[in-house]
C-alpha cells in the first residue's frame, strides 16, 4: 500500500477547480482509498473466517457436560481432546477420506481435462454455451443432486433397469458402496476442475502445439512436454479445488455411502450431533485443517509455486 502512495501525483489541481464548490471531487490519498477498498473484504473475512476459526480452536480446548456439549474456560484448557483425536482408531477413516478424495481428484483430471481442452480449442462460437452447461448443475442444490444419484443407483433405479434391458442383469448393488461415494464426489466437484483448466488452456498459444509437432514431438510427447507444463497453473488450481473440499466432505458418504464408507467429515459431524462432543469434533477439525495446509504447502513447493 505504501507504493501506491508514491505512485500518485499530488491532487492539488482538483481543489482549485471552480466547480469543486458544489461537487467536491476531492480524491482521497492513495493509501487510504486502498485500505477503504479492502475494508469490506477484511470485515467479511474477520467475522466469517478468522473468528469462526479461532472459535473452533478455542472449542478444541474446551470440555463438555450433558447439559452443554461445549464448556470453554481459559483457566481449564483441555489438551487431551487432541490426544483422543489422534487415537489410531480414527486412522482407517482418515486414510479412507484421503483415498476417496485422491481417486475422485484423479477421476476429475481424467474427465475434466479432455472436456476443458475440447471446449477451449474446438468450442468455437458455442464455447460459452458449453461452459454454461458445465455450470448448470450448480443451479441445483448439492443435496438434491446427491438424492438424484440415490434414485439412479438404487436397486430398482435407473442404472439397474438400463443394465437389465441390455441383458447385464438387474439387482446390482451400487448404492451404499465405495463406488457410489467416489462417483458422487467426482460428479459434484468436476466443474471445479473444468473451469480453472479451461481458463489456462484458453490462454495457451495454439501455435505451441504446432511448433511441437514441427519439431518432431509425437502426440503423447506434445501433451506431456508442451501442453501440460503450459496449463500447469490451471491443473494445480483444479486439483486443490477438488481435493480439499472432497477430503472434508460428509454429505456424499452420508447420502450415497453405507455402513463402511464413513469419511473424516462424518466423524467430525457426528461429534457435533449424536457424539455430543464438540471439543473432540473441533480438535479433529483443527488437525484436518493443519494436515491439509501442510499438504498444500509441500505440494506447492514440489510442483512449483512459480507455476501459479
Amino acid at each position, binding site marked *: 500500500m505504501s507504493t501506491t502512495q508514491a505512485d500518485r501525483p499530488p491532487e492539488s489541481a482538483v481543489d482549485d477547480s471552480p466547480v469543486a464548490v458544489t461537487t467536491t471531487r476531492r480524491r482521497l490519498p492513495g493509501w487510504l482509498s486502498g485500505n477503504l477498498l479492502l475494508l469490506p473484504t477484511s470485515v467479511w473475512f474477520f467475522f466469517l473466517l478468522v473468528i469462526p476459526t479461532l472459535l473452533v480452536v478455542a472449542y478444541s480446548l474446551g470440555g*463438555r457436560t450433558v447439559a452443554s456439549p461445549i464448556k470453554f474456560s481459559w*483457566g481449564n484448557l483441555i489438551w487431551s481432546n487432541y490426544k483422543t483425536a489422534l487415537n489410531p*482408531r480414527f486412522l482407517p477413516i482418515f486414510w479412507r477420506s484421503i483415498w476417496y478424495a485422491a481417486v475422485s481428484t484423479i477421476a476429475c483430471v481424467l474427465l475434466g481435462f479432455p472436456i476443458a481442452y475440447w471446449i477451449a480449442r474446438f468450442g468455437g462460437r458455442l464455447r460459452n454455451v458449453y461452459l454454461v452447461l458445465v455450470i448448470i448443475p450448480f443451479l441445483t442444490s448439492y443435496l438434491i443432486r446427491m438424492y438424484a444419484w440415490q434414485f439412479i443407483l438404487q436397486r430398482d433405479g435407473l442404472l439397474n433397469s438400463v443394465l437389465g434391458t441390455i441383458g447385464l442383469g438387474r439387482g446390482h448393488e451400487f448404492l451404499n458402496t465405495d463406488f457410489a461415494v467416489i462417483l458422487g464426489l467426482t460428479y459434484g466437484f468436476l466443474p471445479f476442475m473444468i473451469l480453472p483448466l479451461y481458463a489456462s488452456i484458453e490462454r495457451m498459444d495454439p501455435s505451441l502445439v504446432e511448433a511441437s509437432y514441427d519439431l518432431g514431438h509425437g502426440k503423447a510427447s506434445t501433451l506431456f512436454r508442451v501442453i501440460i507444463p503450459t496449463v500447469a497453473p490451471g491443473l494445480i488450481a483444479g486439483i486443490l479445488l477438488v481435493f480439499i473440499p472432497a477430503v472434508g466432505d460428509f454429505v456424499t458418504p452420508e447420502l450415497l455411502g453405507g455402513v463402511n464408507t464413513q469419511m473424516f467429515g462424518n466423524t467430525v459431524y457426528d461429534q457435533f450431533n449424536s457424539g455430543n*462432543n464438540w471439543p473432540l469434533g473441533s480438535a479433529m477439525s483443527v488437525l484436518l485443517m493443519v494436515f491439509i495446509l501442510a499438504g498444500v504447502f509441500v505440494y506447492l513447493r514440489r510442483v512449483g509455486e512459480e507455476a501459479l
Partner: protein
Amino acid sequence: MSDPDRVNLAFIWDTTSPHFSRRTFMRTMAFASAAGFAAACGSSAKTGGGATTTLGNTPTTPHTFSSAVEAKTLNFYNWTDYIASDTIPNFQKTTGIKVTYDNYSSNDALFAKLSSGSTGYDIIVPTDATLVKMKHASLVQPLDLSLIPNVKNLDPRFRDAAYDPGNQYSIPWQWGTTGIGFDKSKVGGAVTDWDAFELPAVKGKSSFLDEARDAFAMALFALKKDPNSTNDADLDAAKDYLIALKKKVKQITSDYQDPLKGGELLMAQAYSGDVFTIQADNAKIEYVIPTSGAFSWVDSMAIPKGAKHPKNACEFMNYILEPKVGAALTNFVNYGSPNKAAEKYINKDILDNPLIYPPADVLAKLPFQKDIGDAELKYSDRWTEVKTA
C-alpha cells in the same frame, strides 16, 4: 381473525395432505441443525468478552406462571400429520383462544430451532429423548399442574415415566414403540426378536437407527441387560455387539422409510408409527415388537422457556386430556393414546391391535428411555467407537 373456525393455513394443508413420514426429512433437517450451530457460534462471539463462555445453561424458573392476563392466542408447533381435524377448531370454539399451528418433521429441527433463540411457540411436542436433552439445556419450563386437573386421566404408566417423573415438564401426546420393520414377502415370518438381524435373508440388507440410545437399547435388550444401563461392563458388551452387528447390516440410518418401502432395505430398526405409515403404501411391510423387549417412545407437549402464553398452553394440555378429545386424536392418527379415560371412545380396531395397544405381558417389556444424566456421555463416546469401528 376472531372466527374460531379459522386457523392457520398450515393446519389445513396438514390434515388433507397424503400421509408421509414424520422423519422423512430428518437428514435435510440435520443441516438446519448445522445452521443452528453456526448461529450458536455467532451468539457466543458476541458474548466472548468474558473469561468464560458457557452455552445454554441458565437456571430454571419456578412452577407457577405470573398472574398477568395472557392474550387469547396460542402458538402450537407440532409434527406434521399428527392431529385430528377438529382438535384445534373445537378448542378455539370452547375457549376463544386463537391457535396458530405450525409443523416440523424432526426432533433435530425442533431442537436446533429452540436452541437458536426465542421462537414464539407456546407448545412443542418433542420425543422423550429430545425432551430430556431440552431439560438439560434449560430450553423448556416446568408446567403448572394446578392448571391441568385432567392429568388424572393419564394412564398411570405416563404419570411417573422415567423420562419425566411426575409430569413436571410434559404431558404426553401419543406413544409407540421402537421395534423392527421388515418386508414379510422376502424375509418370511421368522422375525420375532432382535436376533432377526442374524437371518441370512437380510445379510447386508438391514439397518439400525443412527441414535446412540436406541441402538444401544437394541443391543442391551438382545443381551438381556437393562436397556437404560449405565454399567460400563454392560455398555462395553453392547458396544461389541453393535460393532459385530455392523458387519451384517447395510446402513446405520434414521432415514430408513423410503429404502424399506422400496425394497432397498429388507429390515430396519424402526419407530412403530413410521412403519404403519409405510404400510399404507406397501402392505408387505410388517412391524414387530421384539419379544425380549423394546423402548417405548412418547411424544410429549412441553412449554419452551420464554413462551408468552404458558397458561393458555396448560389450558390446551388440559383440553387434550379430556377423554373425547384424546380419543378423537388417536382415532385420527392411529397411535397409542396415553389417556386412559379416553379408551372407551377409541375405535375398537385400534384398541385390539396388539402393536398399538400391546397386552400386559408385552407392555411390561416396553420401558421408557430414562434420563440418565451424565452417563449419557458414556453412550455417546461408545457410539463414536461403534460408528468409527
